[in-house]
């Protein structure tokens, strides 16, 4: 009996520890798409009407195009992206031990270009990098976000958490003030989502174009009137890792459509 009680207590403690490992409980976890009107959701789900598929399709062409000094295409090594890139976006950002830094999908693509293809790195937010990122991330559509917080990634994760919780800008707001304390409410006409990155690169109607998660994060920095880091900046990478952890178990929706 004692043993059973002890086992029960241990089990409860383990559950508690697991619950503490998330800051949004699983049943409450909501993708940004659940805050959208049905017509925008339908636009995202329709692989033809979804305008971001233009970028995905362009990414597929780039995937197969030889480039750089090596005259190799992505497909030369990685073959069919549908098989080789499945789940890759769900695991990023990831700490790269060899490079000694945190790489998101954009960073990984550029690392492959410079180190293997002998091609120049693509500019962050350029059409080409967006297209390739959208194409690679699209191969993970429907798979759960699953970033690893290993030794090397730990400081980045902690830095991301600090950034997430720290007040900034003239509005003196932290990410969590809107996306955790007030998620589900409205900011003027717009619903406030939980602020997950599982649909990026995404097509935003406001942008009339596809954009990266960093562009979206910058829009929030702008919203609270804080100084905006450049796309690809370390702060945004660290935040991206924290967001990936925070959204763990959400399904990848890339390419998403957002307001």
């Amino acid at each position, binding site marked *: 009996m004692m043993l059973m009680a002890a086992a029960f207590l241990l089990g409860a403690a383990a559950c508690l520890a697991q619950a503490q490992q998330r800051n949004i409980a699983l049943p409450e976890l909501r993708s940004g798409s659940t805050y959208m009107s049905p017509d925008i959701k339908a636009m995202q789900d329709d692989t*033809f*009407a979804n*305008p971001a*598929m*233009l970028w995905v*399709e*362009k990414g597929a062409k780039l995937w197969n195009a030889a480039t750089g000094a090596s005259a190799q295409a992505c497909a030369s090594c990685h073959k069919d992206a549908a098989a080789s890139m499945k789940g890759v976006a769900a695991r990023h950002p990831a700490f790269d031990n060899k490079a000694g830094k945190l790489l998101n999908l954009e960073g990984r693509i550029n690392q492959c270009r410079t180190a293997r293809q002998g091609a120049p790195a693509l500019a962050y937010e350029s059409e080409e990098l967006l297209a390739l990122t959208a194409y690679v991330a699209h191969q993970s559509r429907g798979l759960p976000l699953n970033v690893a917080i290993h030794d090397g990634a730990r400081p980045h994760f902690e830095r991301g958490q600090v950034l997430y919780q720290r007040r900034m800008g003239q509005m003196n707001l932290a990410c969590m003030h809107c996306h955790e304390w007030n998620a589900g409410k409205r900011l003027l006409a717009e619903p406030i989502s939980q602020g997950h990155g599982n649909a990026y690169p995404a097509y935003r109607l406001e942008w*009339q*174009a596809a954009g990266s998660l960093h562009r979206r994060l910058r829009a929030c920095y702008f919203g609270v009137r804080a100084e905006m880091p450049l796309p690809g900046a370390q702060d945004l990478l660290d935040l991206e890792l924290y967001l990936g952890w925070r959204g763990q178990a959400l399904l990848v929706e890339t390419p998403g459509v957002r307001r």
Partner: protein
Amino acid sequence: MADARIQVPAQVRRGEAFEVKVIIRHAMETGYRLTDDGKPIPRNVIREVTCRYNKVEVFRAETSSGISANPLITFYVMARDSGELVFDWIDDTGVRGTERAPVSVAG
């Protein structure tokens, strides 16, 4: 950089109308926007989109600044013979684009 996607049913029946969808990648710059330093961004929208079905024009749209970026156009065409649909468009800067899709007619 021809950037458009066309959707046509895999097979259509002779004498029946079928749905054609095309989405063209274009910024459709309205001409009403300003750059961050206040300079007007010149208008650049697609002026005209045409569709030819086996060399016969079956659809024409005169588009303007009221239309969103990356416009999606849907229309119906009567199936006659197998062949192809050819889309052509031109924007304010004179840049032309073209994209084609095969049509397979049964019966």
